């Protein structure tokens, strides 16, 4: 009995230390965003909110943020739509070459972004002589988020009872109507996670954007170039902290929503 207790404590201790390892570097950022010193070094000099008020005047940062939001939302919606269709095809139909098709769609996940970035750059510029823009960034982000979306939605669709759909068909619904009235509500949680996952992936992606963005910077491009200039870093830290706070609120809210959904609907389905 004594050894079991010791074992448990060691593992728990490790878990706590591991969380500390994950959190300490990340929490340093908000900490330094309130520090009244243009250089990000210890010791702390004093509390200030000026980096946050600077954000309101930093037009480069604002337009980069806006560009990233635009691309992220577009990519999330488009990829989730494609992922929904593809996941349905994968789970509902007996496709020929199903495994090869699945592997092909998953392939972008195991090719380094570096390679995808340079090869897309070469083909767009040399092959088609296309101008780079946020559209080209968005297109490459769709490529890397579609497999994520399909994975999330397939996991969701594989779980549910097909007889529900058949029942709706038997009761006279058309294929589209039974999809909209039966399948879609069941898949909704998967759609929400797919939207979030695709958005955050695109919003945070640097390398593809770096190769394919042209003159309009996305937020990661702006942050990366700011990191070379010490004077620009505090603003970036303030923005990073705000983004972290917003995402925590979003995650908690999404979780709360999900729980409400679970308790409110038929539990045998979920």
């Amino acid at each position: 009995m004594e050894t079991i207790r010791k074992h448990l404590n060691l593992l728990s201790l490790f878990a706590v230390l591991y969380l500390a390892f994950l959190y300490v570097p990340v929490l340093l950022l908000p900490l330094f965003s309130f520090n009244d010193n243009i250089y990000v070094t210890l010791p702390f000099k004093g509390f200030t909110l000026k980096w946050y008020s600077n954000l309101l005047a930093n037009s480069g940062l604002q337009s980069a943020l806006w560009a990233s939001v635009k691309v992220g939302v577009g990519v999330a919606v488009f990829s989730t739509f494609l992922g929904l269709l593809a996941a349905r095809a994968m789970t509902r139909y007996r496709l020929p070459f199903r495994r090869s098709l699945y592997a092909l769609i998953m392939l972008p996940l195991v090719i380094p972004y570096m390679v995808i970035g340079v090869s897309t750059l070469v083909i767009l510029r040399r092959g088609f002589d296309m101008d780079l823009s946020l559209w080209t960034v968005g297109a490459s982000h769709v490529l890397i988020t579609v497999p994520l979306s399909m994975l999330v939605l397939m996991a969701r669709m594989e779980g549910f009872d097909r007889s529900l759909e058949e029942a709706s068909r038997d009761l006279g619904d058309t294929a589209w109507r039974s999809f909209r009235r039966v399948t879609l509500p069941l898949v909704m949680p998967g759609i929400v996670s797919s939207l979030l996952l695709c958005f955050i992936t695109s919003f945070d992606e640097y390398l593809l954007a770096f190769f394919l963005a042209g003159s309009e910077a996305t937020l990661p491009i702006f942050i990366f170039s700011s990191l070379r200039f010490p004077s620009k870093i505090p603003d970036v830290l303030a923005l990073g902290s705000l983004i972290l706070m917003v995402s925590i609120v979003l995650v908690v809210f999404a979780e709360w929503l999900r729980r409400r959904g679970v308790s409110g609907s038929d539990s045998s389905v979920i």
Partner: protein
Amino acid sequence: MNTQTATNPAVGDAALSARPEWLDGLWLIVPTLLIVIGMMVVPLVGIVVVSFWTQTGFNIEATWTLDNYRVLFTPEGALYRILIVKSLWMSLTATIAVVLLAYPMAYFMAFRIERAKLIWIILLTVPFWTSYLLRIFAWKVILGFNGVINSGLKAVGLIDKPLEFLLYNPTSVTITLAHAWAAYAVLPIYVSLEKIDRSYLEAATDLGDSKWKRFWRITFPLSLPGTIAAILLVFIPTVGDYITPTLVGGTSGIMIGNSIVTQFGKANNAPLGAALSCIMMLAITLAVCAFLAAIGRKRLKAADL
């Protein structure tokens, strides 16, 4: 084909029409396939082709040559050879570090946490909601010349000059990567541990296995799919990483990704950059194949993703 649809009882209305049912499914997946072909297959073919072309001044000429690959075997190509080996090595050490640290955490979450597992999953993923760039930058703040560790040690009086070996070397890159990719390792391992049927464990205990024996005979083999997935998920993208070596690697910590970017930028030699990309992909593929072969075909089948 018709016999197949006829034997499938689920396809009532497809049997009535002559059209096979899977055709509907194909239409659903075609848009995704078009994206994958247009944005990945075509560019990859393109880069392989360009890697056999020549750069003359500001133009790329479609003259076929092996020079871009040949340069790797000359004395001038030593830099690229070293960088490729070094990138593989740094990713490998980072991957091992990530997985070794992640496994006990995943184990803890799967077997020690009984209630509110979701809270732990959220706790684990929240740090990854900050920008990847800022997470990497945070390590610069920790390890830097005037960083947290140096100023901390100075304040305590343990050192009077900042330690310079902390930042800008392969080790700092490895530590930073181990932190940045943690969630990619913990979650897949956790999922496969969570799936293990607990009655197997009880059976092993009933049959007299000790805790360790039980772990190595049951838990570990059954967690292999997630562990392998974690290894691949961390190893493959980190070989080609650019951000981390650029921010915390200094001159001694640069990786092959940095030199690919240079070829497409300052050095303006896209064919050579294309060749380096191809070689990097080839090296990753070979490393992954060697790894999977080492694990064995039988295990691989069980781990089929």
